[in-house]
């Protein structure tokens, strides 16, 4: 098998096109690949459709940078900070330009990705019944349950197959086999539904390490297109067992992005003037190291021996 290692710049340049439907993190609040968000902005990608139940401030930054045509998601804002100022400006004032949203709940979006992953014609969901999400998202359709004797409306959610999913993992081998732990959000569904998967690995390990715990794998290496070794790719979001959340960074972003000028200065400082994620880590300096999880609360071993 050939190794799939690439730099973040190479991987995104080769595999993300203007107009693509892209997942940037699928683990809800943790494990958001901000490093990829920043690099897509540097590369000037345009007209992206961002697909995610929740990608914290990542989506707000991309919207502010003018990279987004549409959001297919359940929630956009700044989870620990408040509303997403760029998201609001795009809707309320058309700054930098208007965007479209396909409203979902977390469940309908997760089920849409599951339907994409597993070749289902649609996912039947009950939990949007009565919600105006059914009115504002033209893709959702209500039918009467054909198996029921009484009236029983069901929402049919069409499958979602992103062009690219960028998925941070704690460790991967060069062939795309990876371990992911902690809460899983819709990581499995997103990775299996996407046409291409780009892993951002905190650590690159020998294939034997991954093979020594196959239940820790969420999707197989054969669906992975590129493996990027990029420590702290999730900063300022947390990574289970590795990085704490940089709450002050989210708060600073929230405060500065309140005005368009403030956001532009923030973007210049943290994205445009920073050549790559190595420089970003250097810029964070001891602040990053202070976020490193130092205690060890280790999983007990399990045995996979064949005899």
């Amino acid at each position, binding site marked *: 098998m050939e190794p799939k290692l690439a730099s973040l710049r190479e991987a995104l340049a080769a595999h993300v096109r203007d107009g693509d439907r892209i997942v940037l993190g699928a*683990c*809800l*609040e*943790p*494990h958001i690949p901000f490093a990829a968000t920043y690099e897509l902005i540097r590369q000037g990608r345009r007209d992206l459709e961002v697909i995610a*139940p*929740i990608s*914290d401030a990542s989506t707000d930054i991309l919207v502010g940078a003018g990279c987004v045509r549409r959001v297919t*998601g*359940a*929630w956009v*804002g700044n*989870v*620990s900070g408040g*509303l*997403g100022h760029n*998201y609001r400006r*795009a809707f*309320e004032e058309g700054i930098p330009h208007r965007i479209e*949203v396909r*409203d*979902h*709940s*977390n*469940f*309908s979006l*997760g089920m849409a990705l*599951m339907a994409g992953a597993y070749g289902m014609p649609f996912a039947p*969901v*009950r*939990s*949007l*019944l*009565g*919600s*105006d*999400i059914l*009115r*504002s998202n033209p893709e959702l359709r209500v039918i009467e349950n054909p198996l029921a004797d009484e*009236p*029983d*409306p*069901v929402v049919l959610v069409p499958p979602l197959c992103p062009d690219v999913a960028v998925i941070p993992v704690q460790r991967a081998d060069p062939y795309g086999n990876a371990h992911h*732990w*902690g*809460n*899983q*959000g*819709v*990581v499995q*569904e997103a990775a299996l539904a996407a046409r291409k998967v780009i892993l951002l690995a905190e650590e690159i390990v020998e294939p034997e390490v991954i093979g020594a715990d196959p239940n820790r794998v969420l999707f197989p290496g054969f669906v992975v297109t590129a493996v990027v070794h990029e420590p702290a790719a999730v900063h300022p979001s*947390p990574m*289970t*067992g590795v990085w*704490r*959340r940089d*709450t002050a960074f*989210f708060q600073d972003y929230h405060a500065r992005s309140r005005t368009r000028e403030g956001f532009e200065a923030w973007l210049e400082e943290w994205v445009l003037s920073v050549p790559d994620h190595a420089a970003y880590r250097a810029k964070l300096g001891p602040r990053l190291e202070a976020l490193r*999880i130092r205690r060890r*609360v280790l999983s007990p071993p399990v045995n996979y021996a064949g005899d």
Partner: protein
Amino acid sequence: MAYSTQELMIIAAAREIADREVVFVGMRLPIMAFGVARATHAPDAVGLFECGLVRHTPASGMLYTMGDPPNQEGAAWATGTVQLLGLLQGGRVDVGFIGGAEVDRFGNVNTSYIGDPRRPKVKLPGSGGAADIAAMAHRLLVIINHERRRLVERVDYVTSVGHLDGGASRRRAGLRRGGTAAVITDKAILRPWGPERELHLASWHPGTTPDEVRDATGWDLRLHPEARPTPPPTEAELAALRRLDPEGFWR
């Protein structure tokens, strides 16, 4: 013991959770309320977090989001969002807690758009898991600050379904259970009453009056037949809350 309005609100919410219940827990106030309930009258309540976590015990440290590392350590189950929201849809969740920007007299919640959704005056973050929780939990608790612009006659957009247009309309929409059981504010607790399921004033917090609550409400709020003052926090409740909030964030 002196306490803040926020503390009172958290404790009032905690009282809505019964022991052994399975609770879908939201961030901020709900997570504190869940912690207080567990530490007082509901030691065996189970907490579900839509990012994919289930906990029997409170997290070891301060949480800004439900996926923060202290919530991972010692979790009872670390799984996916579809699994947990699936269990919710399957009827396994007793209580769901959500916040919102607007709630109306039938307990519907808006976290999506103020004004016309096609050209909103304010674009709010959206549902997250709130629509699912509102539709599928056996009881929905809404926590919101009590202001006229927030407690409105009719929300601009129903993100999360309460009793919809009242009466049997929620059931007619296909939802077979649940609905808003209580709206807990910094002034009062509102509960649906009668066949119309309109929210009525069920209890007013210490330091306020029914008239003051009515003045802060965007519809003609009627008195629940069993309306009474909210009992003040007990020593045990406050002590439990302050153990969970050593830095006094909510004080």
